[in-house]
């Protein structure tokens, strides 16, 4: 009984913290205290977090190297824009449509390619990402290489924070469920998992589809903030950007992905005046992290209050839960 009360108390606490946080930033925005530059970067930060966390599910937790994540972002972006701009549907419909379309794309691409192993899978996903881009470039209905211009600015702080929280909650819950354990077992030793009777393909596809779905969500949010989308935006370099975040944060740590996404967003902004160095730096980060600290920043650990508590001298009461 006491346990349940404690847990619901904690749940209420976190909801309250969330709401307060939301209102705080919302106030700052409405009062014009946060300048435009800050708002743009905050939006980029949220979108990057969603992208990194969703890719981490595929690359980190399931251990399948997917190099075409930008392709799913593109599918979501275009789907949502078609719905809101050409069919005048409300934003929520666009977002749901984006998720559905991206998830479907994830399924269509995932089922055939996830039978492949390691390197082959990576190349196949890279190829699919490029195919999506080339196909979009040749469809005149969505503007071809020029893309779609003049997208209404429907993404707000509320949608952004809501989407970020949703992404984290869903993926964390998935990882901590029996599905999650199956997924992690695929990463650890696929042959052993199969011997234990786990349908590895099924779980790989599940992870892939969910990852793709959230990438689509990120794409839709992106499109409705940045006014224009074109196929070139979602090329391999974009997939690579997301990969850097996931690798830096630690393949298999959601917190790591979040921290790294923030770090990369800030770094990008700081290096606006030094273009060539930025790419060299990212490449070096990738190489150095892989050689000297392949577990990235967080390994596969998550940040928990207990750790914070230890740092602060243990004045945060601990309970039986980990």
């Amino acid at each position, binding site marked *: 009984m006491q346990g349940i009360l404690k847990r619901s108390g904690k749940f209420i606490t976190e909801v309250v913290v969330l709401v307060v946080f939301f209102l705080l930033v919302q106030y700052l925005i409405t009062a014009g205290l946060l300048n435009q530059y800050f708002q743009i970067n905050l939006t980029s930060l949220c979108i990057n977090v969603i992208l990194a966390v969703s890719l981490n599910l595929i690359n980190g937790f399931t251990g399948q190297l997917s190099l075409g994540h930008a392709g799913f972002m593109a599918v979501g972006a275009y789907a949502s824009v078609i719905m809101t701009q050409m069919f005048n549907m409300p934003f929520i419909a666009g977002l749901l449509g984006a998720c559905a379309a991206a998830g479907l794309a994830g399924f269509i691409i995932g089922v055939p390619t996830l039978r492949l192993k390691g390197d082959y899978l990576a190349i196949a996903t890279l190829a699919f990402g490029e195919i999506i881009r080339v196909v979009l470039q040749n469809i005149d209905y969505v503007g071809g290489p020029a893309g779609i211009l003049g997208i209404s600015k429907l993404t707000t702080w509320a949608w952004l924070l809501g989407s970020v929280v949703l992404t984290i909650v869903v993926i964390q819950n998935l990882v901590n469920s029996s599905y999650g354990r199956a997924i992690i077992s695929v990463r650890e030793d696929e042959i052993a998992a199969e011997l234990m009777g786990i349908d590895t393909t099924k779980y790989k596809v599940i992870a892939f589809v969910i990852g793709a779905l959230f990438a689509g969500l990120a794409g839709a949010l992106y499109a409705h903030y940045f006014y224009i989308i074109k196929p070139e935006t979602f090329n391999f370099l974009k997939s690579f950007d997301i990969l850097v975040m996931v690798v830096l944060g630690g393949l298999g740590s959601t917190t790591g992905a979040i921290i790294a996404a923030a770090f990369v967003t800030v770094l990008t902004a700081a290096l606006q005046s030094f273009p060539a160095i930025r790419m060299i730096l990212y490449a070096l980060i990738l*190489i150095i992290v892989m050689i000297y600290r392949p577990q990235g920043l967080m390994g596969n650990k998550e940040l928990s209050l207990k750790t914070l508590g230890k740092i602060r001298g243990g004045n945060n009461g601990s309970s039986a839960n980990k």
Partner: protein
Amino acid sequence: MLEFMQQLVNGLSLGAIYALIALGYTMVYGIIMLINFAHGDIMMVGAYVGFFSITVLGSNVVVAMLFAMIACAVLGVVIEKVAYKPLRNSTRIAALITAIGMSLLLEYLTIFLLTPQQRVFPRDVFPMHNYHLGGLVLSNKDIFVILSAIVLMIILQFIIRRTKTGKAMRAVSLDQEAAVLMGVNVDKTISITFAIGSALAAAAGVMIGIYYGTINPLMGIIPGLKAFVAAVLGGIGIIPGAMVGGFVMGILETMVSGYGNSMYRDAVAFGVLILILLIKPTGLFGKNTGEKV
């Protein structure tokens, strides 16, 4: 019929270049099971070395190619020692990610040091001469490219089949641990493999510079990708496969542009890749070896 023959000629010279690059991919994969993403960019470095050799040192085509091949052989060995060797016992994902990082590093370092602008190969270094065979146009460049590629491939086959080094390379790619037990110096063998593969890519790079006239820091990406597809098509790890795969890709691409829709030319390469991976991942010449526990 004439048009078909012309397209065939077009395809053969394109294919020869793909074959040279594909060989590097396949050799490296055969020996350490790594897709060297940076291979296309090594080709680009070779092109640049050749370019500077011609414009700054005033050398002729053959000397420039030799220079490029030596420079890239060294580069390949260095990259292997610095970036891939430490990861020999890591997961495949780690090695792949490092290779991607290396590829981007080469590209953006070149941009940083040499600007993103394209460089033009001086036209008089290889004066053009067209041979007309009853309506068919064959330039001396076509002949040079196809012949050089064939010569290099023959040399490669000789090395693999008739020398001790080649034997060592075959041994290591079959079973690394057994090779060690038999006294093969695995490190040296791997280095030599990288050196040869990179040298071939460098030759391809110089040829591209001569044949198409311009080079730029990002020129390695698309040909690299297509050559990789060629290697997979032939059976990755199998050297004759890479040669055949290269020519097939060149001819296929040419035929699609010539008879189909040119706007989807690049998509064809990706499509072929997906098809092979789904239908016969081991490629045309590959054998099916299941993964053992």
